[in-house]
């Protein structure tokens, strides 16, 4: 129904229209995040979710129609263009973190769309199309970037937890016990201080 309306005199392919819309706003997306134009960013996010939902079921007809719209190139371009901004443990970084949240939302929606093509796969046709058209090294880059960002986030949050404790508890040096390198280091510092006291 989203690409052919059988009872209409003229059909509109909404799926291809959504992909065209996303392709049109794609060059502006990275800038929109920098300028905090969340409306445009939300539009892109919802566009990808709509495409992903249209393929759910699986709806093989929609999967095929969407695969032929050039969406794989679009996904590659979005993943290449939208990158996380580095985060540091200062109080005025909240805006960077918010922007990173939006980046994360869009990229997860892209991943969900790609996953939608593989739902209920019954032949090699679609996977082969994906294999040939997607930039897999780009996806690996994303995985690497996600991991690095996660490590930095975790370290930043642990450091903030440490300083929060310092402020509240003075020399008590309570620390979180999530087991990361920062927490382990803080725990060692605390025990050393306890011994020297």
């Amino acid at each position, binding site marked *: 129904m989203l690409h052919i309306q059988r009872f209409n005199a003229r059909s509109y392919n909404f799926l291809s229209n959504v992909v065209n819309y996303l392709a049109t706003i794609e060059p502006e997306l990275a800038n929109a995040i920098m300028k905090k134009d969340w409306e445009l960013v939300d539009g892109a996010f919802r566009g990808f979710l709509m495409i992903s939902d249209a393929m759910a079921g699986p709806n093989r007809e929609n999967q095929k129609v969407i695969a032929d719209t050039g969406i794989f190139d679009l996904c590659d371009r979005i993943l290449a263009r939208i990158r996380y901004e580095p985060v540091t443990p200062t109080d005025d970084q909240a805006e960077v973190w*918010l922007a990173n949240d939006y980046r994360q939302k869009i990229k*997860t929606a892209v991943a969900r769309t790609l*996953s939608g093509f593989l739902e209920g796969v019954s032949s090699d046709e679609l996977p082969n199309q*994906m294999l040939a058209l997607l930039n*897999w*090294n780009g*996806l*690996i880059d994303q995985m690497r970037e996600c991991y690095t960002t996660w490590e930095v986030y975790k370290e930043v949050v642990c450091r*903030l937890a440490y300083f929060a404790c310092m402020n509240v508890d003075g020399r008590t040096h309570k620390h979180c016990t999530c087991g990361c390198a920062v*927490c382990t280091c803080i725990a060692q510092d605390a025990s050393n201080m306890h011994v020297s006291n």
Partner: protein
Amino acid sequence: MCEFECAQRRTDVEKPDLCIEEGIAFYFVMVHIKHYDRRNLYIQPAFELISPHILQHYHERTGYIEIVSAAMSIFFPPFSYHNMFGNAFSPGMHVRLLC
């Protein structure tokens, strides 16, 4: 609530784990489509570009159900396993059914 969680709330960093969820989504797509890359032209060479400990990190956190038959593998993705099985499956759990 430990200090780690307090700091998370205080700084509005809702979920650092969201980054990992994103990585998991990409990892799932790649693991799934690897079965169709029969000549190992795309996915295996790409996997070799990433550090094995990062790959292991995702492997341990990506949950899916795979039904393997002679012709093809059928995957149930991590996005829907909550709906199907409630909390029966932890995020890093793989179930491989051979038929």
